[in-house]
């Protein structure tokens, strides 16, 4: 690259091709969409060289601050920064308002669903969802039927993944109602962008995200056990070697609460205490970032060294509250996902504002037949995996991979769903020599307390490898800051 090239004003759209995908910034006719116009004007004032320098300084800052995730299976204890693309993804106000309504609708329905299946099970009795699907759910906790969770809230924090298809239509890809992670990157990305483009924020009008920790803290205070006026809240982490450990410490610090490991807690007389230098001190609310299975070795996996013996007993006694509640994993089940539009209809008598991706259930004979006949075109997902694991991308898979899934589906149909391959929307993204389109999704974070609040935007994940559709951090994904505008332009 010559100096002349690198120093000239930055027309990021020069030579930029949207191809046949829906591009977030550029319309099919090559025009910049209205809500990107102001950004584009301001961005033109920065040369590519300056831009590259800012990218590098952000990467360096992240490494220094330890804004990293741990790479599993690496004996060196390597930490990596979650690659960050400095070009923000922008959502206009009216579109966000629609998404917000859709997400509130969805989490409300999911929550009613969880309450229902752990109590009267009306949705089953009324024949909307077959009982077998629920009872065979890996994360259905039948021990918790008829258990009263504080304030009837099951999912306190939900990360719902949204995508846009070929015509820009929004769809829900999946719900993460157990321990969704990534929100710390939303907050850190915003900080990084403010440092990199300080002038832009005042000129464009971008809704803030910094209130997240406060909202989360309020929702945790809200579920404190009855009679506890000033609850002690802690964040329970699996420990420093967990891939999301940075996020755990980050959130604890932002909320001003203790971060504890299982070994810091002890249960006596169905009450939870933490071991301090001044002896045992009571704990009332636990924001746990440990899966159900590992919470309490006396109830769930007996080999869990991360959990707290007796914790579930204390939870049942109502002396400690957990967020998220136990048993929410059933709502994450990809088979249950199929039924969410029906839940919305059943509980709220509404049509879903954001539709699902069309889904086939391998446990339904007709669907299975279709799936097996169309494997090379479909995305097949294991019902209870996350993070992009246990997935077949039909159009990109080898013959062997497809055959492996064919056998797996026949052997355990309950565990597989199929979806057509969605050509995710793309966004201009910084690459070696300029800007190219890369596929993205969006994970907004929904906090359910006294009211439901959603931080404007969320985590935009981007598949950095050319042509890739996998945005997970564990598989070569990066992230972008997400701007929700006050207006539509």
């Amino acid at each position, binding site marked *: 690259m010559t100096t002349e090239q690198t120093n000239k004003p930055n027309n990021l759209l020069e030579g930029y091709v949207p191809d046949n995908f829906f591009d977030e910034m550029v319309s099919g006719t090559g025009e910049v969409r209205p809500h990107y116009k102001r950004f584009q004007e301001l961005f033109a004032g920065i040369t590519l060289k300056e831009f590259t320098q800012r990218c590098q300084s952000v990467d360096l800052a992240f490494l220094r*601050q*330890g804004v990293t995730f741990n790479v599993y299976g690496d004996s060196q204890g390597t930490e990596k920064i979650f690659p960050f693309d400095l070009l923000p993804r922008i959502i206009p106000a009216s579109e966000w308002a629609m998404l917000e309504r859709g997400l509130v609708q969805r989490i409300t329905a999911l929550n009613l669903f969880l309450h229902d299946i752990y109590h009267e099970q009306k949705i089953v009795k009324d024949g909307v969802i077959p009982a077998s699907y629920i009872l065979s759910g890996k994360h259905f906790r039948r021990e918790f039927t008829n258990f009263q969770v504080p304030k009837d809230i099951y999912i306190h924090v939900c990360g719902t993944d949204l995508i846009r298809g070929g015509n820009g239509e929004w769809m829900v890809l999946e719900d993460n109602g157990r321990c969704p992670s990534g929100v710390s990157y939303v907050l850190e990305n915003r900080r990084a962008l403010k440092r990199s483009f300080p002038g832009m924020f005042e000129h464009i009008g971008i809704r803030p995200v910094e209130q997240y920790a406060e909202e989360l803290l309020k929702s945790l205070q809200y579920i404190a056990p009855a009679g506890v006026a000033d609850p002690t809240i802690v964040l329970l982490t699996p420990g420093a070697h967990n891939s999301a450990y940075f996020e755990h410490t980050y959130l604890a610090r932002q909320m001003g609460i*203790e971060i*504890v490991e299982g070994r*810091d807690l002890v249960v006596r007389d169905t009450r939870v205490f933490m071991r301090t230098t*001044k002896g045992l001190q009571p704990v009332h609310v636990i924001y746990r970032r440990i899966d159900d299975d590992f919470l309490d070795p*006396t109830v769930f996996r007996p080999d869990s060294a991360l959990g707290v013996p007796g914790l579930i007993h204390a939870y049942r006694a109502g002396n400690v509250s957990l967020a998220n509640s136990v048993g929410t994993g059933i709502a994450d089940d990809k088979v249950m996902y199929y039924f969410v539009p029906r839940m919305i209809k059943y509980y709220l008598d509404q049509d879903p504002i954001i539709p699902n991706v069309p889904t086939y259930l391998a446990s339904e004979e007709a669907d299975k037949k279709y799936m097996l006949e169309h494997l090379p075109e479909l995305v097949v997902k294991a019902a209870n995996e996350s993070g992009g694991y246990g997935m077949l991308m039909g159009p990109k898979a080898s013959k062997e991979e497809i055959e492996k899934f064919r056998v797996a589906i026949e052997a355990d149909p309950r565990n597989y769903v199929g979806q057509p391959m969605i050509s995710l929307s793309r966004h201009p993204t910084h690459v070696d020599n300029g800007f190219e389109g890369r596929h993205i999704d969006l994970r907004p974070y929904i906090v359910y307390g006294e009211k439901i609040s959603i931080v404007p935007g969320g985590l935009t994940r981007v598949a950095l490898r050319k042509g890739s559709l996998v945005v997970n951090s564990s598989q070569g994904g990066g992230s972008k800051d997400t701007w929700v505008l006050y207006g539509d332009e």
Partner: protein
Amino acid sequence: MLSRVANCLFWMSRYVERSENIARIVDVNLQLLLDFRDLDEHRLAEHWLPIIQATGDEEAFFKLHSKATGQTVTEFLVFQAENPNSIVSSISDARENARMVRDQITSEFWEELNRLYLFVRSRQARDLWNSSPFDFFQEIKATSLRLQGMADATLMRNEGWLFMQLGKYIERADKTSRILDVRYQTLPEHGVPKTIGQEEVLEWSAILNSCSAWDAYKSIHGAEVHPKLVAEFLLLSEDFPRSFEMCIEQFNQSLRKISAVPDGRFSNEAERLTGRLLAEVQFCTIDEVFERGLHQYLDDLQLKLNAIGAAIFTAYFFQSIKTMDEEIFVQQEEQQQQRAIQNEEFKMKNSGAIGTRVLNF
């Protein structure tokens, strides 16, 4: 404060102090060699071996190296990951502990420590070490001092701070006593040496330098360097911030602030042992020390520090005497008992009406 967190802060601070001390020891001794003539292999081994002995890692060293040369000793003390007390290991451990308590320290502090960690593990660190060891050590020492300054200027004076002070001062006291012990083989077993040679003057000056005490010492004793004066200064000075006495004094103060137990009393073993050790160095003369033999005396001090470290652990960090299995057993017992009580209550309530209702459990 969580016991685990207190423990992490204690060790974070202790490891930072350790890395700085080792940097000073190696730095000073490398420079000292520049002043010697006619260095053969034997003389070099004589020079470096006591340094390994002083850091207390002789056994670990000979597992990894057959001979004590400048090359092997410095590698062992600076970079070797297999040596848990090398500079790189200490910094990695400090940083690992800091990572576990990031909510307790300021971001400035964390970023500085993380920067040092990234530096010592980088290619540039090796390059700098090869081209200018002096600059390399300068970087480590300066960062440690920066970290102390940041802690001093930005951290809340809460319990966490006090545990950091404990870690820092116990490590400093330990290292001062070990550095002072480096040249004991040139001393008589008991009593004070009359005169010392030119080379020994250089060696005892190096001891002062290793404790950053040269300027402070000179301001009291002028240019005269004698083992007795050096030992007195590093052990018993009430004013020099790295002297053994002052470290124990500071340590004692922090310890008492944690429990709010006044001087002259104690509420746990750590306070008792610390109080006794403080009195020992406060009311001791340097002649007594040399009569017993400096090496023997320092050895005793180190044993006492170890005992204090263990007592702190018992008093504040280690409350769980139970393993996971035992804890599970306790829970089952508790839950069983509660069920029995509930059954009992149920029977009492229903004792007048047996047979009228059958309830399922």
